[in-house]
């Protein structure tokens, strides 16, 4: 049974009406021609989807971004690329399975694709630690990025994590250092890097593979310095104030585009990527293709300079004298 979000209920109701009309007209000739009714309902459905999904606030987007049927990194890899050769391990004792990565063919071009992987069923969720990476995941990602640089292969990262894993083992193994070092190295890699937030962009754990020449966001994804839950409990002292926190944090793609933190919003199928994995992948692939083409025209030194400058300029402050 599909999980239906609160604001999707009316949409699903109309979809069921359409299904019923279809089966009615198939079963009984006596009901007459229902084509007109069905067409009317379909039009209504399109409008409903558009209205509902255009008006989602930060908290509603968070729910869409966390939808259990939303396409994950491996879904996008399977639907956008061919010949994926997954590569494993950080070479220092960790498999880092909350992040997947490897070579893949994007049209005729080999790319290194790296992304957080949440699990689909319960066993997989636990194995992947719900997409919350240990230091090994970030170190594996870095190893793969350096491998890509060595062979002049562009890098595409897909971001979808609640955040870096806050556990004892993660701290003992240097979670801070793992994230920090990725930022340090990514800023100087001599190949194109495109980062895409496909679902949840949770804080440092997201940024750890997010330092791209281009940063893109799927329409209904979110990207934030802290989860709405964390923010609510720290600043409101009440973890139920998630709606207010999500709104205050400015975590939607439109808001982040306005802040000049992301370069492009990639549209999703009407009703959200979870309604049509393949279509979502086609739309992303198209956007990636044109961005990659632009970046591959740049020299290595230009790529590094562009990335450096992009992040150098982020920040808003006052400079007047007191």
């Amino acid at each position: 049974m599909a999980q239906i979000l609160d604001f999707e209920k009316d949409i699903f109701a109309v979809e069921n009406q359409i299904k019923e009309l279809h089966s009615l007209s198939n079963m009984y000739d006596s009901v007459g021609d229902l084509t007109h009714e069905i067409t009317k309902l379909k039009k209504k459905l399109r409008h409903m989807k558009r209205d509902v999904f255009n008006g989602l606030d930060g908290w509603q987007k968070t729910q869409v971004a966390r939808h259990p049927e939303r396409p994950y990194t491996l879904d996008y890899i399977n639907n956008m690329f061919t010949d994926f050769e997954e590569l494993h391990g950080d070479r220092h004792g960790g498999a880092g399975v909350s992040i997947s990565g490897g070579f893949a063919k994007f049209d005729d071009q080999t790319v290194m694709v790296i992304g957080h992987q949440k699990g689909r069923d319960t066993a997989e969720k636990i194995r992947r630690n719900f997409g919350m990476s240990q230091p090994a995941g970030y170190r594996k990602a870095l190893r793969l990025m350096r491998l890509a640089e060595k062979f002049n292969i562009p890098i595409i990262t897909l971001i979808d994590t609640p955040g870096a894993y806050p556990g004892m083992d993660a701290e003992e193994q240097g979670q801070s250092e793992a994230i920090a070092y990725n930022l340090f190295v990514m800023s100087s890699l001599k190949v194109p890097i495109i980062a895409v937030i496909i679902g949840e962009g949770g804080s440092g754990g997201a940024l750890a593979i997010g330092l791209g020449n281009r940063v893109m966001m799927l329409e209904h994804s979110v990207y934030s310095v802290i989860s709405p839950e964390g923010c609510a409990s720290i600043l409101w002292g009440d973890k139920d104030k998630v709606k207010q926190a999500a709104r205050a944090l400015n975590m939607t793609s439109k808001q982040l585009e306005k802040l000049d933190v992301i370069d492009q919003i990639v549209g999703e199928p009407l009703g959200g990527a979870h309604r049509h994995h393949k279509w979502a992948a086609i739309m992303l692939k198209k956007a990636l293709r044109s961005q990659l083409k632009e970046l591959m025209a740049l020299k290595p030194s230009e790529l590094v300079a562009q990335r450096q400058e992009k992040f150098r300029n982020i920040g808003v402050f006052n400079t007047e004298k007191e």
Partner: protein
Amino acid sequence: MSWLERIISKTGMGKKIPKTTEASWIECKKCKEQILEVDLIENFHICPKCDHHFRMKPLDRIRLLVNPDSFEEHDQNLTSADPIKFKDKKKYKDRVKTALKAGGSTDAIVCGTGKMGDHEVELCVFDFFFLGGSMGSVVGEKITRGIERAIRNDRAVIIVSCSGGARMQEGILSLMQMAKTSAALQLLAEKQLPYISVLADPTTGGVSASFAFLGDIIIAEPKALIGFAGPRVIEQTIRQKLPEGFQRSEFLLEHGLIDQVVHRKELRNHLNNLLSHMKNTPISKLTTAKPATAEADPVKSDAE
């Protein structure tokens, strides 16, 4: 003017510090002993009874680290804006206003150029008393400018972190300061200029997961809380109490995450030695700087 009054007028932090003529007692949060404030200041803000390292105001710390009269502050005219009009129970704007009115730093960090022994350094020191030392756009920009000054002038960088992490009231912009500062350190590294990161209690979150852990050398003060996630978040995640000493400096040293745990009284000497080693220059023996005397006031003048 007494030396203490001079400091008070210089730093503008006089509101809370009473005159020396009045005895003011402070309770050590570690051993619960009552300590005379003057004794605490004379002892580098370290509890004379149990050695607990108190949090320090940035100018007090700078005074401990640099040669007298050598520190020139930069970029103190940068102040926090309110880019996403953030409001929780209070407006972010008002929180900043209140912090500014307290009369300490103009944001959660003080940056400037100073001399430490024989070395010119760009020194950035966090102010935990300003919104928990949280890193927003101002902190990220000041650190980045400090690193860029070091690159232009062939200087070393020293950052003393003391921060709960990113300033969430600036939303994603605060997260991006991690990328910005780390990218700047990459340029510093390419120039083969030294960067020493000093971690004071506490260093967590976005500060920990960026420049604080990118030092060529990472030094922590004794028993400082250092980590990516805060202890409460970890306890909620794993649903059990954390062992004593977890995420403290000594624990990090044992786990290979930092180079040294250094007592505050020894910090200046170690920094000077390490810089001399990294630059392969003779090591001059420094006398440990006096905590705060009229003779050893480091602040030359406010920069333009």
